[in-house]
């Protein structure tokens, strides 16, 4: 177990109670809370060291550039990229995926080509591909889900053809928590020369990720889901793949030479970072990564598995509760979706909220998936470094209260 009280103490938000009730935050899959060191860096940077990057000759600007690029380096090491050039800063996972769908998609996908996604995708890794397929008259194929809530690998093998240009799949579902064995999926795609994008929005904050070992072409994730600030997304791309792609946005910072009627473009990573970037938040994100590394991803994963196991035990005791999680905890991250017979998720969340327990309800930006499970909406608890068994006990008490009320 992690030293929970010591970790919780480092997140200022947990010192604020609501009507004397402590905050039980069970919605980290949506976005996590921030440790003090991340908040402090933001404040400190604006107060003492702020200037634009890549522009000024003066000290402040050079220092800003240095700190911004240092964060890029730290991120590249965190996912074991070959070089920092392979890390592009965007606004969030969604923007990273759109960048690829436009830049790579527009220049590589043609009529009758095929794009493969999975039934587990978040809207942000589904809708950009639907649109690309429409623009290019390409075909969108979907890897089905098995009854045990894992992806059907055998069907995937059959979906791949010589026409498959890109496979875009999540490494962990934000609804069922299913962990996808992505290395197996990458190997298969390679046989057809298809590019492969991994949506790591849920996996990178919780599981050790090594892009060289995975051998994916792209990996995308968001800082705000891993203790970092909002407004920072990461796009990792293999250098050769990114080199072959045209820019996504045009303007300042991404050019090498500009003439009146023609321009040439900067090298990686600047080629994909037009305009003044989100400097302060990128710099603060580095602190979040250091915080995670200090605890250790192996420890985080172990901790979340024990929370998941505990929550499953506690919640499955109620016959009204139906869990939507892979049977084996081995195949799932720290996410537990469920329904309660006779209580609509919105009503349940309202009752939990009275006890200062935050859970997510609704379709979780994955409407096709939730509907395929036969539900109109789900409740979801998700865990991170600051959660403990006590949080789950409090949530269980709220559940008991709701069941009594709606009896």
């Amino acid at each position, binding site marked *: 177990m992690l030293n929970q009280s010591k970790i919780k103490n480092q997140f200022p938000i947990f010192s604020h109670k609501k009507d004397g009730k402590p905050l039980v935050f069970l919605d980290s899959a949506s976005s996590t809370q921030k440790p003090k060191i991340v908040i402090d860096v933001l404040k400190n940077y604006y107060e003492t060291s702020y200037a634009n990057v890549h522009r000024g000759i003066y000290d402040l600007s050079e220092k800003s550039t240095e700190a911004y690029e240092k964060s890029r380096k730290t991120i590249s090491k965190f996912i074991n990229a070959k070089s920092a050039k392979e890390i592009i800063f965007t606004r969030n996972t969604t923007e990273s995926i759109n960048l690829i769908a436009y830049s790579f998609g527009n220049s590589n996908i043609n009529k009758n080509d095929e794009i493969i996604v999975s039934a587990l995708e978040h809207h942000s890794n589904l809708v950009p591909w639907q649109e690309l397929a429409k623009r290019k008259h390409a075909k969108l194929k979907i890897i089905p889900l098995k009854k045990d809530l894992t992806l059907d690998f055998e069907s995937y093998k059959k979906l791949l053809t010589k026409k498959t240009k890109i496979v875009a799949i999540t490494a962990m579902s934000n609804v069922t928590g299913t962990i996808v064995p992505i290395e197996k999926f990458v190997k298969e795609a390679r046989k057809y020369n298809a590019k492969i994008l991994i949506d790591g929005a849920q996996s990178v904050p919780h599981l050790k990720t090594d892009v060289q070992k995975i051998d994916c072409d792209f990996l995308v994730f968001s800082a705000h889901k891993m203790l970092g600030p909002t407004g920072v997304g990461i796009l990792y791309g293999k250098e050769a793949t990114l080199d072959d792609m045209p820019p996504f946005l045009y303007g300042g910072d991404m050019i090498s030479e500009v003439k009146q009627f023609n321009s040439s473009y900067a090298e990686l990573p600047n080629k994909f970072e037009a305009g003044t970037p989100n400097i302060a938040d990128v710099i603060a994100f580095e602190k979040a990564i250091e915080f995670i590394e200090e605890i250790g991803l192996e420890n985080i994963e172990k901790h979340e598995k024990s929370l998941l196991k505990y929550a499953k035990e506690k919640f499955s005791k109620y016959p009204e509760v139906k869990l939507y999680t892979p049977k084996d905890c081995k195949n799932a991250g720290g996410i537990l979706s469920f329904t309660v017979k006779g209580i*609509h*998720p*919105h*009503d349940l969340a*309202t*009752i939990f909220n*009275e006890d200062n327990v935050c859970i997510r*309800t*609704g*379709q979780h930006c994955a*409407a096709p998936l*939730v509907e395929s499970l036969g539900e*109109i*909406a789900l409740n979801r608890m998700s865990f991170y470094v600051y959660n403990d068994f006590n949080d789950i006990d409090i949530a269980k008490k709220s559940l008991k209260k709701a069941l009594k*009320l*709606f009896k």
Partner: protein
Amino acid sequence: MDLFSETILDHYKHPSNKGSLKNPTITISEVNPLCGDKLKIDLKIDSKNRIKEIGITPQGCAISTASASLLSEKLIGKSLKEIEALTEKDIFKMLGIEINPGRIKCAMLPLVTIKKALLMKELKEKK
């Protein structure tokens, strides 16, 4: 617990005027895209443009279901003009609870649905 008063829970568990009508004057279905709630309403309107019968098929949370149930009771015998004049305030008063901003959509879904139905009827008649 303010939101889930006895009245709300009672109407949620046993909605009034539940079910479809035979030969309704209008039928309309509405979805709340945020939570996936669905509501179908059948209306029978008499020659004096008053609501004669109402049938609701709710599939949603306690707030939207109770709102539909209470509203269905309130609307029988009302003229279409009177219904058009109903506002958010009337709905909150009818529910008798405090609605936080996140749940206003749920509370309003039934009235919004009925107003939409009446508008459709008007448009159809103009054609």
